[in-house]
C-alpha cells in the first residue's frame, strides 16, 4: 500500500512537471494525392498566452527499418525546420513510394521544445490515388472512343510506373438517365471503344482510377457527354429527297425560262412581227425603182441662183424684204440673224404698219438702191 501511494505520488509529480513543457502537436494527418504528401497538425492554441516568443515547428522522417536501432543512431531527416505553418510538404523529401516511414513533428520556442508526435506512413498503402489526368470522348461510327491519360506523379510521370496493378473504371450512361443507372467497364488500357450502343443517342462518360491490392479508388473525372452517330431516320431521308426534287424542278424551270427569253429576243431581232410599209420595203429589193436625188446621167454640176439680203438694213427695209420675199422663192440668208430676228421683224411690222404707208416713196427709192446692190450680192450655189 505504501509502495502504491509512493508510485501514485511520483506519477502525479511527473505529470505536473510535464505540464511545464510545451505541448506537442496533435491530430497529425496526411493530405495525399498520387505522390504529393502534405502533413497537417494542430497545436493547442489555449497555450498561446503562455508562450513567450514565436512558436515554430520541426518535421522529420525516418525509414522504418532504421527504427530498430538505438535512438541516438537513428538518422532522422529534417524536412521542415522551424516553420510557423501547421503543415509540411513531404513531396520532395525523397520518400520512396514503397517504403514505410515514420514522420514526426514537434513544437519549438526559443527556450522550450515539445516532445515528438509520430505517425507511420507508407505511400503505396496510404497515399490516395488521383483521377485520370485527361479523358477524351469521341464518336466514331456508332461507337464511342475514350482516350484516358492516367494520373501523374509530382514529377509528371504516369502513376502506372509506381502502381503496377492500376486500372480504370469507366462509367457510361444515356444522358437523360442518372449515373446510378450506369454501366461499368473495367480496363487497364488507355484507349477504350464502347460498342453496341444505341445510335443517335447522347451518352455521358466518367472515369476513375483504381488499385486492386489496397482497394484504392480515386474520385471520378469530369463527366463528358457526346452523341453517337446513327442511322438517319426515314422521315429525314424522305424530306431531303423531296427538297432535292423541288430544287431540281425549280432549276430546270429557270433554265427553260432563260432559254425561252433568249430565243424570243433573237427572234424579235431577226424575224420581227412588225413589217415595214410596202413602198419602203420595195427599196430593199434589188429591182425596185428608187427615187433619185440626182439624174443618173448628169455629169456636170447643177447650179442655182441665190439672192443674199443683208441683215444690217433698217426695220423698214426689213419690211420691204418681207414683201420681196413673197415673190422670191429662195430663202434669203441674213447676216447674223436667225429665227429670232425674223420673229422680231414680224412684231415690228405690226407696229410700224402705219409708218410704212407714209414712207413708201422713200422705201421705193431705197428699194431701188437695194436691188442694185442686190444684183451685186447674187450667189450661185452649185452641186
Amino acid at each position, binding site marked *: 500500500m505504501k509502495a502504491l501511494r509512493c508510485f501514485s505520488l511520483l506519477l502525479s509529480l511527473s505529470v505536473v512537471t510535464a505540464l511545464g513543457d510545451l505541448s506537442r502537436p496533435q491530430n497529425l494527418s496526411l493530405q495525399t494525392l498520387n505522390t504529393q504528401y502534405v502533413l497537417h497538425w494542430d497545436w493547442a492554441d489555449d497555450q498561446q498566452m503562455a508562450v513567450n516568443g514565436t512558436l515554430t515547428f520541426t518535421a522529420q522522417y525516418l*525509414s*522504418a*527499418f532504421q527504427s*530498430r536501432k538505438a535512438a541516438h543512431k537513428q538518422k532522422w531527416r529534417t524536412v521542415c525546420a522551424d516553420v510557423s505553418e501547421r503543415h509540411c510538404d513531404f513531396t520532395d523529401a*525523397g520518400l*520512396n513510394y*514503397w*517504403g*514505410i516511414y515514420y514522420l514526426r513533428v514537434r513544437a519549438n520556442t526559443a527556450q522550450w521544445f515539445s516532445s515528438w508526435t509520430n505517425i507511420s506512413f*507508407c505511400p503505396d498503402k496510404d497515399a490516395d490515388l488521383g483521377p485520370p489526368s485527361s479523358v477524351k470522348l469521341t464518336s466514331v461510327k456508332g461507337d464511342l472512343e475514350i482516350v484516358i491519360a492516367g494520373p501523374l506523379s509530382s514529377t509528371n510521370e504516369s502513376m502506372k510506373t509506381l502502381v*503496377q*496493378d492500376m*486500372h480504370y473504371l469507366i462509367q457510361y450512361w444515356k444522358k437523360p438517365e442518372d449515373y446510378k443507372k450506369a454501366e461499368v467497364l*473495367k480496363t*487497364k488500357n488507355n484507349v477504350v471503344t464502347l460498342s453496341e450502343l444505341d445510335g443517335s443517342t447522347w451518352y455521358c462518360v466518367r472515369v476513375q482510377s483504381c488499385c486492386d*491490392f489496397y482497394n484504392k479508388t480515386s474520385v471520378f473525372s469530369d463527366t463528358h457527354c457526346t452523341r453517337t452517330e446513327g442511322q438517319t431516320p426515314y422521315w429525314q431521308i424522305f424530306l431531303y429527297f423531296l427538297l432535292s426534287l423541288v430544287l431540281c424542278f425549280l432549276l430546270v424551270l429557270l433554265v427553260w425560262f432563260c432559254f425561252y427569253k433568249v430565243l424570243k429576243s433573237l427572234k424579235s431581232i431577226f424575224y420581227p412581227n412588225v413589217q415595214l410599209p410596202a413602198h419602203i420595203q420595195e427599196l430593199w429589193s434589188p429591182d425596185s425603182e428608187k427615187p433619185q436625188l440626182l439624174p443618173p446621167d448628169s455629169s456636170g454640176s447643177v447650179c442655182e441662183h441665190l439672192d443674199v439680203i443683208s441683215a444690217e438694213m433698217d426695220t423698214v427695209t426689213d419690211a420691204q424684204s418681207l414683201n420681196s420675199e413673197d415673190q422670191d422663192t429662195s430663202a434669203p440668208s441674213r447676216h447674223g440673224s436667225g429665227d429670232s430676228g425674223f420673229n422680231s421683224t414680224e412684231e415690228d411690222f405690226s407696229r410700224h404698219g402705219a409708218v410704212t404707208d407714209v414712207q413708201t416713196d422713200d422705201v421705193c427709192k431705197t428699194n431701188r438702191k437695194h436691188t442694185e446692190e442686190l444684183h451685186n450680192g447674187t450667189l450661185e450655189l452649185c452641186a
Partner: protein
Amino acid sequence: MDFHRVAWLCTFFCFAQVWSLPTRNCILRKDLMKKTCTFIETASGLFPSQCLDDHVSISFPQNVFESSNTLQVTGVEKAVYQTLQNIDALFENYSVPDQWDEEKMTDFRGIVYRQIEESKCIMSKSETEENFPSREASLKVYFEALSSTLKEKDFSFCAWEIVRSEILRTLNFILKHNSDIMYGSPQL
C-alpha cells in the same frame, strides 16, 4: 463431459486453423519482389573483375523453393518469407561498403522491411505437407555461409560483391520459379 467439451473446442480450433482464409496481405507481392531485385542490382555495378579470384562457390539451396505438389505451396511461401528475413538480418548486422549507392541501399532495405512487416501472417499459415523445418534449415546454412564469407574476407569490397551477387541470384530464382504464389500476375 469436460473432456468432450475440450475435444470439441480442439477440433473447432484445428479446423479454423486449417480453413482460415488468408487475408489480403498474407501474400507476397511480385512487384515488390521485382523492386527489391532492382534496388540491390543498381546499388552497385556489374560484378567487378578484380573479385573473380576471390569468388567462392556457395551451394544454392534450390530445393527450398521447389514444391513437388500443390500441398507444399505454403512451405515455399514461408521459405521465401524466411529468405527476406535473413537478408534483412544480414544487412542489419553488417554495414555495406561506401562505394555502394546509399540511397538505393536505403530503398532496398526499406522495401525488404516492408515485405516482412506486411506479410507476417504467412508464417502463421500451416499445411500438412509443407515440410518447412527442412527448408528453414537449408536456408539457415546458406545464409551462414554468406556471413562467414564476409567475416573471412574481413568485410572487403569483394566479399560484399560476392554476397550481393548471391542475393541477386536468390531473388531472381524466386521471381522466375515462384511467381505463381505471389500477387501481381499479368492478368487483371
